[in-house]
């Protein structure tokens, strides 16, 4: 290993290790312990020897023929050669290594360790490209600034100035180093996408054409970071200038991303983080092409600012004027209301989902799943998950439809779409279970529970308009719901469904400083923000049912299903019917209505 790799590798590994800890995924940090130990061992073995022996200077050999630079390189050729040298320096820079470390953290955390938890749609995953680009971009700004100010810092400016290459050619060479972060980030995107495709089967949905500009924006942003670093270095040598710039860009980008309505935010197209939508239904309205043009114009404009330090001729001014014109046009058009036709189409998707959906029906249960047509894979995935639950319900239970729909309110829609809505945003219909777009393991468990609850006639707070959550402590129907929801799972998965992994570990509990009370130990809903709370004794009873022979429990459940659906039937009555020992008196669960998750 080359000694030059040590700084950049150290930066990558340190960032990855501490980044994993900071972002709450210590598991990802552990991955880097081995490489860190290996690097430290290498450094220890190859540490610098004490005083180097002076290399001798023997008498010069007879001079060969005078070297001839037959034709001096053109500025373009010199810029290319210098660009390669500077690219090498950038790639080995410790600052750039920190940016690489952030990419490693992202990759290991989301594409490896928590790959199974990814259940979003592809449009949302692609929309993360600009977000993922920001840490690398920030460090690249610093690295590029240091490259641009290196001659002044190291005292080589006078020597370089005495050479025939003009300073503007050196600036062009520095701008060319943008190829390094662009290549790195593109490679990251490819590797990340492949890893998600192979390792995150729950990611679903189409990848429409309008999502591609957001994907492309990531490489454009990191190229712009080089341009900004070089421009800053050309005009402002102050060492903290790039840090100030990074903070300023981050501040304004976040402010722009959070401006506007709580849901729909037209000005987010001007944020480097990119236009945002809370629901994939409206993602098609995002001005993604204008956003890509906007960040491209920003990058081009900054590059022109760098060149203006040393060259102010017509082509440079024209390029600058073009960047400004394109940027202004992209800003105006990107923040303009969406086109009428597209807005109407989205309004119809929101208001009349049934007209735009396809349904798959269970072969052995009164159950069907309906999603927007492009979400066939989600439809099949949800049906496969809830079908065993539906089959375990008695035939007397009335048919159910799991229907995908827009989960937000009017503030999540552009004003033009709001005006085009000819009806209210539909609520969950009678006999329906409304879902949105999530298809990960936790979401599927939630769908199983909701089918089980619906089969038992238990209406959740969201169905009744009440504040959640509600307590079903000590009620047999809660235990039966867990048993039903676990149908089709192996025993380990089933027991997991009825187990609170980390009681007292919720955010609310941390804030309150309490913990491990009956409320915390009764939170079995997969995402900790569920609408119902069991008691710890109910969960123990549910686990006992899961361990019992399935046929025996199924027979008891089906035979007295009306009784088990009754909220006055106690958990111990069910256990007695099955010949299982009593779970004991249920603890009283005091409901926390304020932000329990």
């Amino acid at each position: 290993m080359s000694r030059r790799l040590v700084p950049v590798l150290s930066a990558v590994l340190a960032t990855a290790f501490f980044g994993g800890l900071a972002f709450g995924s210590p598991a990802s940090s552990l991955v880097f312990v081995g490489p860190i130990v290996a690097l430290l061992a290498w450094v220890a073995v190859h540490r610098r020897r004490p005083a180097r022996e002076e290399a001798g200077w023997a008498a010069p050999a007879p001079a060969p023929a005078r070297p001839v630079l037959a034709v001096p390189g053109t500025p373009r050729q010199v810029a290319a050669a210098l660009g390669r040298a500077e690219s090498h320096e950038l790639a080995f820079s410790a600052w750039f290594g920190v940016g690489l470390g952030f990419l490693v953290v992202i990759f290991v955390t989301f594409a490896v360790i928590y790959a199974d938890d990814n259940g979003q749609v592809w449009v949302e995953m692609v929309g993360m490209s600009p977000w993922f680009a920001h840490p690398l971009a920030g460090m690249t700004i610093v690295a590029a600034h240091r490259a641009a100010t290196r001659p002044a810092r190291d005292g080589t400016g006078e020597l370089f100035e005495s050479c025939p290459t003009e300073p503007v050619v050196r600036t062009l060479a520095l701008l060319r180093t943008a190829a390094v972060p662009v290549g790195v980030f593109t490679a990251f995107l490819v590797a990340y996408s492949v890893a998600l495709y192979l390792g995150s089967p729950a990611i679903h949905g189409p990848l429409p054409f309008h999502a591609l500009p957001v994907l492309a924006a990531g490489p454009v942003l990191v190229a712009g970071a080089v341009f900004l670093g070089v421009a800053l270095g050309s005009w402002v040598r102050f060492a903290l200038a790039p840090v100030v710039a990074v903070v300023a860009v981050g501040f304004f980008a976040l402010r722009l991303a959070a401006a506007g309505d709580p849901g729909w935010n037209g000005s987010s197209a001007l944020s480097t983080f990119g236009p945002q939508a809370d629901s994939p239904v409206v993602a098609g309205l995002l001005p993604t092409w204008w956003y890509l043009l906007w960040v491209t114009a920003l990058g081009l404009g900054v590059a022109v600012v760098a060149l203006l330090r040393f060259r102010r001729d017509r082509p440079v001014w024209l390029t600058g004027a073009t960047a400004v014109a394109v940027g202004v046009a992209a800003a105006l058009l990107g923040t303009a209301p969406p086109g009428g036709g597209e807005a109407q189409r989205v309004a119809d998707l929101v208001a009349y989902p049934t007209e735009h959906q396809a349904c798959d029906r269970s072969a052995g249960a009164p159950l069907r799943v309906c999603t927007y047509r492009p979400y066939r894979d989600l439809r099949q995935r949800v049906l496969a998950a809830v079908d065993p639950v539906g089959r375990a319900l008695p035939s007397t239970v009335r048919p159910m439809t799991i229907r995908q729909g827009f989960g937000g309110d009017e503030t999540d829609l552009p004003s033009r779409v709001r005006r085009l809505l000819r009806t209210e945003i539909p609520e969950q219909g009678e006999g329906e279970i409304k879902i949105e777009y999530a298809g990960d393991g936790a979401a599927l468990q939630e769908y199983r529970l909701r089918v089980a609850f619906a089969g038992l006639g238990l209406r959740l707070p969201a169905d009744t308009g009440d504040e959640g959550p509600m307590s079903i402590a000590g009620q047999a129907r809660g235990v039966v719901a867990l048993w039903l929801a676990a149908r089709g799972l192996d025993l380990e998965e089933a027991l997991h469904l009825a187990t609170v992994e980390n009681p007292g570990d919720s955010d609310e509990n941390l804030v309150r400083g309490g913990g491990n009370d009956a409320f915390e130990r009764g939170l079995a809903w997969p995402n900790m923000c569920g609408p119902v709370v069991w008691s710890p004794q109910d969960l123990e009873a549910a686990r006992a049912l899961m361990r019992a022979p399935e046929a025996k429990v199924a027979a008891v459940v089906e035979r007295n299903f009306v009784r088990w659906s009754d909220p006055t039937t106690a958990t111990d009555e069910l256990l007695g019917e099955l010949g299982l020992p009593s779970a004991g008196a249920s603890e009283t669960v005091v409901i926390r209505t304020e932000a329990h998750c």
Partner: protein
Amino acid sequence: MNVTTGVSVYGLRRRFGATVALDGVDATFVPGVNGLLGPNGAGKTTLLRILATVLRPDGGTVDAFGHDPSTAEGRLAVRRRLGYLPQEPGFHRQFTAFEFVDYVAILKEWADRKPRHDEVRRVLSLVGLEAVMHKRIGQLSGGMRRRLGIAQAFIGRPTLLVLDEPTAGLDPEQRLRFRELLGTEAAGSTVLLSTHQTDDVAALCQSVVVLLEGSVRYAGAPGGLAAMADGRVWLAADRDERAQLAWIAGDGQVRHIGDPPRGAHLVEPTVEDGYLLLAGRTAIEQAGAA
């Protein structure tokens, strides 16, 4: 002299605030090694920086091989012929020696990789750094860094070499190697060499210019500078207060420069004697004026 084969300056002036660095310097530097002597602050580095096109004079003109560096075209033409070693050359310590010289070679418009790398290896071998060329500059000793600076100045065998104190920090053997290097590599080139080492001037230079307080006090052959002290250098057992300068030489005798007393044991003057006589007299005049 044909001006297209050398460098001439006419009435060169340059101030730094209230300090006059160059005060109407006229000089001609012919092909061969031209020495530049003078005490600190005499204006040597300022003159060399102007000739290296990194500093603009306040007045006067420069003619380098028929080119005027005050124009963009002239400056480019001079820079294409130039090899420059600044007085305090900086280095990118994280670069290897090879990478640094390669970088300078690119700046000297060697865009093609293969011939450039060949040239980089050649100049590094000239200064004996080929064995450490892939070491980071931060790991090199001060002497090796100085040789690295010399190496980059020889890229492409420039026809104008401007070397500001190139032997500072070199040991006697390395100074000898440097002299050999100039003899082989700079043949036919116009070399401007600023130094405090008068023996370097005596050994290397065809001509020498002595600068004092921004003005030329001597321009000519080194022998002529030595000859200025003809009949004014003598040895004695004890220090003579009438001498302008006196010091104990290696043989234990006191070497004097100045007007000798009757019967003094006169010796052959050196370039250093001539230079010290010139510079010492100025110093005495400065003291008298004060």
